[in-house]
């Protein structure tokens, strides 16, 4: 068995070498398409991940909060006297309920023990005015748990100057949005005056700039620690307005959001509802990359098919004599399948290699944009799965490209060839 395989291999190799130019062209076709497939997908998904990361990495999978809204049950509906009446109420206004989430520490500890949850980061959103000389600029201060925020949402990636951890270590500190800082003409180490909506005024030291890549966001958003924000708002230290939950599996967000909303009696928003358009964009871009890559491979497959077909016509005599001297149709089939798969295999190996090289090259090209402070070069995704898909698909394509010519070769009737001479 082994010897027979080696023999077929030997013959296949000789046929390949006899037509080495054609073989090379076929292999280059596969190499080229695999190279482009890897590069295209690596580049496209790298870009996708980066763009998605802009929003999705910083968006909690589930956000728990209290929405300002009218009470579902108005007081009159609670009255036993009017229970059976039709109560018509005009001009309902939202209730004066607090934004604070009740019993925050219990909720957080429950979430932390939930297996489906990767992490929890509490947050306070506070509307403020930055006081710059005679003018007030509106803004939002996010009170964050600095470490949790960094672990879950890569906070440090977006802090372009200063050290993010200073926010925790230096009391009464703030990290300003870069655009806001430019507007206020403040430098690192300066003090900015911040006034809360309730009129409390606190001086905060600037320890860093924050740049999200979204200019509008950077104009208003700033970060401070939870304690600082609570102090600014004049609230106790259990005042938390948002709980950000990061899940192990993002796809579960909608169902878990509903579960948590009921369980904790709060409002819950999931990432899919908040950012549906990002996922759609990602899917479409990935789909396009796959279609282009696979089209390239199929074209290469047709190339191999043509070359094998030609080889079979040229080698008709050889096939006939092989059959006459005792090689069966199956052997001939194996020989041509071996040729096809070898072209595919070598093409794929070189294609994967060159794809990696080209990806690394793209990875070196400078890509500086004000919007994306953390990105210095074009983003490339080196995920092994694309290499596996590329390699597998190359083999599948060449298998089918070889399948029909090989079948044809195996069916050649030696009598017809030999008589024809």
């Amino acid at each position, binding site marked *: 068995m082994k010897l027979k395989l080696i023999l077929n291999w030997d013959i296949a190799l000789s046929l390949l070498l006899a037509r080495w130019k054609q073989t090379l062209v076929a292999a280059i076709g596969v190499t080229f398409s695999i190279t482009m497939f890897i590069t295209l997908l690596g580049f496209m998904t790298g870009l996708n991940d980066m763009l998605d990361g802009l929003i999705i990495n910083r968006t909690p999978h589930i956000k728990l909060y209290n929405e300002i809204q009218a009470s579902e049950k108005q007081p009159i509906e609670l009255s036993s006297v009017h229970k059976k009446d039709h109560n018509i109420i005009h001009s309902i206004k939202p209730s004066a309920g607090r934004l604070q989430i009740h019993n925050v520490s219990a909720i957080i500890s429950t979430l932390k023990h939930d297996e489906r949850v990767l992490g929890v980061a509490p947050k306070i959103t506070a509307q403020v005015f930055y006081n710059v000389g005679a003018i007030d600029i509106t803004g939002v201060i996010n009170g964050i748990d600095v470490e949790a925020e960094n672990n879950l949402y890569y906070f440090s990636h977006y802090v372009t100057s200063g050290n993010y951890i200073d926010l925790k270590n230096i009391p009464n500190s703030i990290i300003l949005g870069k655009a806001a800082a430019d507007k206020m003409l403040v430098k690192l180490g300066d003090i900015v005056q911040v006034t809360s909506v309730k009129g409390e005024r606190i001086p905060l030291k600037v320890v860093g700039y924050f740049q999200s890549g979204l200019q509008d966001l950077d104009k208003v958003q700033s970060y401070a620690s939870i304690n600082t924000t609570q102090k600014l708002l004049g609230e106790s230290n259990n005042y938390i307005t948002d709980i950000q939950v990061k899940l192990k599996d993002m796809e579960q967000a909608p169902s878990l959001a509903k579960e948590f909303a009921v369980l904790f009696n709060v409002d819950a928003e999931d990432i899919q509802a908040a950012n549906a358009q990002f996922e759609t964009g990602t899917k479409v871009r990935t789909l396009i990359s796959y279609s282009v890559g696979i089209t390239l491979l199929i074209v290469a497959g047709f190339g191999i098919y043509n070359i094998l077909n030609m080889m079979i016509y040229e080698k008709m005599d050889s096939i006939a*004599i092989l059959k*006459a001297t005792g090689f069966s149709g199956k052997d001939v089939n194996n020989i041509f399948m071996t040729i096809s798969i070898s072209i595919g295999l070598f093409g794929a190996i070189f294609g994967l290699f060159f794809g990696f090289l080209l990806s690394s090259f793209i990875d070196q090209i400078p890509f500086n944009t004000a919007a994306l402070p953390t990105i210095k070069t074009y983003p490339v995704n080196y995920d092994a799965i694309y290499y596996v898909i590329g390699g597998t698909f190359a083999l599948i394509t060449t298998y089918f490209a070889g399948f029909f010519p090989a079948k044809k070769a195996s069916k050649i009737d030696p009598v017809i060839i030999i008589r024809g001479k």
Partner: protein
Amino acid sequence: MDGKILEATAINKFFYNPREVHILKDINFSIRKGEFVSVVGKSGCGKSTLLYILSTMDTDFQGGLKIDGISMKGKSDAELAMVRNEKIGFVFQFHYLLNEFTVLKNVMLPALKLKKYSEQEIEHRAIEKLKIFGMDKHALKNANMISGGEKQRVAIARALINDPLIVMGDEPSGNLDKHNSQIVFDIFQKIAYEFKQTLLIVTHDPEFSAGTDRVLEMEDGRIIKQ
């Protein structure tokens, strides 16, 4: 001269394209071990067709064919390939060497397929066969580097490599000039009488057939003289 190596009983063959032609009519004969048989007849009398049926390459016929006492009817493509590999050697009008390989490798191929011996052994045997025809000095040349007459000698060596029960030839000297066909003829004489090789050769050359043990003369699809 014992045992029938090849036995054909009531072989009939039709061609249907473009219209029905009864090309072989009721062929009955057998070949014994060591016989040197030639088949002669005019062009189109069916002698080549008969040879392809006897060689198991053409399976579309009526009647019985036994090689080495075993019926060839109903055998699969792979089984027939094995029979050809082991029991039949071929020499065609055209040499049909594989140009991608050396002379030596061409001779070795059927034996490598049969794998009765190790590769070294096969190589040794192939060189021995080439020596018989004085072709051993060309062993390492590529098959397309030698002359037509030499190619035919290599083809005969290839036919002998597995020590077949019978060597079949279809006009083996038909494509060669006088000198080379004489050489080929001498070779067949030599292997028939020195090595007691059973031979069945289709030819239209009367000189060739005159030098054989037995002549089967065919006309219009029948054997008219055995």
